[in-house]
């Protein structure tokens, strides 16, 4: 019989040992009932809290037939400021290895159904709730069994054992993470770049050019080069005022995809803007126009401006008029096409038609920059008698 003081010492020592094993709480194991189900094939790990992200992911990947060492995974996983691994990074690490993964808010039903279909789950638990938010401690565990009769779950805590514990025993720690649950299953291979590119374009639209550039460069650095990425990077560089770099990016896009109308158009546009090589600009714009595409008025508008810059006002008028056929009515783009047409008409001495189109451009487009341009045309209104 152990005395009470000795029991206290033993308890505290146990707590300390638990912490040294990086497990802050180990609920007492219960005996599962006859209806309990659990999955076989997840190796137990003694990785503790510090490597819990790697150990959990390694365990689940091993379950799916793709073993990877906890140590190697731990080395690879990016660490947050507190040394832990963000839930998002666990998710992305799985995807980078060709798995499907999702971060969801789990519940009892999800655990039950997952076990039934043979899908282990990774749960994130809050194991230490310090004052404030920054010192809280969190821990990933694997759940691979469920006992509906007694509401028990089988958990890998990372201490080299599995144990059945009441779901209620962990529900508070789980709820503190928004019931964060990571589902990992065999997938179709590395994720597509569509999401990343969409996100970067949205950043561009919001004016966050450096962040957008970072994403494009990351895609390029990780071997996901494409004409589209280079086109978009060129646009960012252009917005940043880096015209030489923009030109290089468009040229690289065309190296990869010689018939990309957008890169052809933008390179032509850039050469026109810099007045560097109008012949090459025209050649590129003609190629872009010949390829068609969903918004042919963009390439036609560029070609029209090039014709005009080369003194071919009649060609420019024809080109702008063709662009007007497809330019959406009421759009900013249509306003600019009308403006280009007016300038070309003025070049050819058709001043009345030019004035009418300037007026129409103002009506079509609310773009203030365009209105400013129109106002700066000294011939936009007839001189008073």
């Amino acid at each position, binding site marked *: 019989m152990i005395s009470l003081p000795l029991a206290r010492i033993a308890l505290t020592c146990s707590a300390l040992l638990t912490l040294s094993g990086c497990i802050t709480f180990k609920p007492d194991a219960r005996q599962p009932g006859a209806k309990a189900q659990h999955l076989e094939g997840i190796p137990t790990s003694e990785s503790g809290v510090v490597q819990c992200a790697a150990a959990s992911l390694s365990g689940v990947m091993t379950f799916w037939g793709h073993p990877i060492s906890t140590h190697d995974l731990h080395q690879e996983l990016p660490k947050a400021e507190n040394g832990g691994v963000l839930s998002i990074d666990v998710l992305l690490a799985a995807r980078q290895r060709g798995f499907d993964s999702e971060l969801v808010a789990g519940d009892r039903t999800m655990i039950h159904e997952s076990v039934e279909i043979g899908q282990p789950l990774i749960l994130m638990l809050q194991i230490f709730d310090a004052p404030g938010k920054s010192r809280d*401690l969190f821990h990933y565990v694997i759940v691979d069994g469920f006992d509906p009769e007694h509401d028990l779950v089988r958990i890998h805590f990372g201490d080299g054992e599995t144990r059945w514990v009441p779901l209620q025993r962990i529900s508070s720690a789980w709820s503190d993470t928004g019931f964060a649950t990571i589902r990992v299953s065999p997938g179709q291979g590395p994720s597509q770049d569509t999401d990343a590119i969409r996100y970067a374009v949205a950043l561009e639209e919001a004016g966050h050019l450096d962040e957008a550039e970072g994403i494009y460069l990351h895609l390029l650095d990780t071997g996901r080069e494409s004409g589209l990425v280079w086109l978009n990077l060129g646009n960012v560089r252009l917005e940043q005022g880096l015209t030489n770099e923009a030109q290089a990016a468009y040229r690289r896009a065309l190296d990869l995809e010689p018939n990309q109308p957008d890169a052809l158009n933008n390179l032509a546009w850039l050469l026109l803007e810099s007045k560097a090589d109008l012949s090459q600009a025209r050649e590129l714009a003609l190629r872009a126009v010949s390829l068609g595409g969903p918004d042919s008025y963009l390439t036609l508008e560029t070609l029209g401006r090039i014709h005009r810059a080369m003194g071919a006002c009649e060609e420019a008028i024809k080109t702008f008029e063709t662009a007007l056929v497809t330019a959406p009515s009421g759009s900013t783009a249509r306003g600019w096409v009308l403006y280009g047409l007016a300038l070309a008409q003025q070049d050819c001495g058709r001043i009345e038609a030019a004035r009418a189109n300037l007026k129409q451009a103002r009506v079509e487009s609310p773009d203030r*920059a365009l209105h400013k341009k129109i106002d700066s045309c000294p011939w936009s209104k007839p001189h008073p008698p």
Partner: protein
Amino acid sequence: MRAILPRLLIPSLLLTLLVVAGAPLVALQSPSKTEPEQSVADREIELAKIQAVVSQPEIAQILTHHGLSTAEAHQRLAQLSPEEIHTLMTQVDQIQAAGAAVPKYIWILLAALLGVLILTALF
């Protein structure tokens, strides 16, 4: 007077012509797109899925609180689908870093507690 007018008018007209001919050619490059061969209209639809996230960067800020740079935070988010990001916006508690080492102050507290318990047991 008649002689002066043409002298002023001609340079003015020339200047006007130069200004008009040299007017910067603003506007219609092809915008960045989310997919190859995408129309501008489809582009707007795609961007609408994610625009709210980018214009309300709370999630990116949460990630920066975990020590990521703004660029790193956006790189993470860029790999999630719009639906996932919208879900995260409503469940920010799920963005935590698990696996941090136990802070030193906890060891100190536990050592102090252990000391007190030993003293209590002995005396």
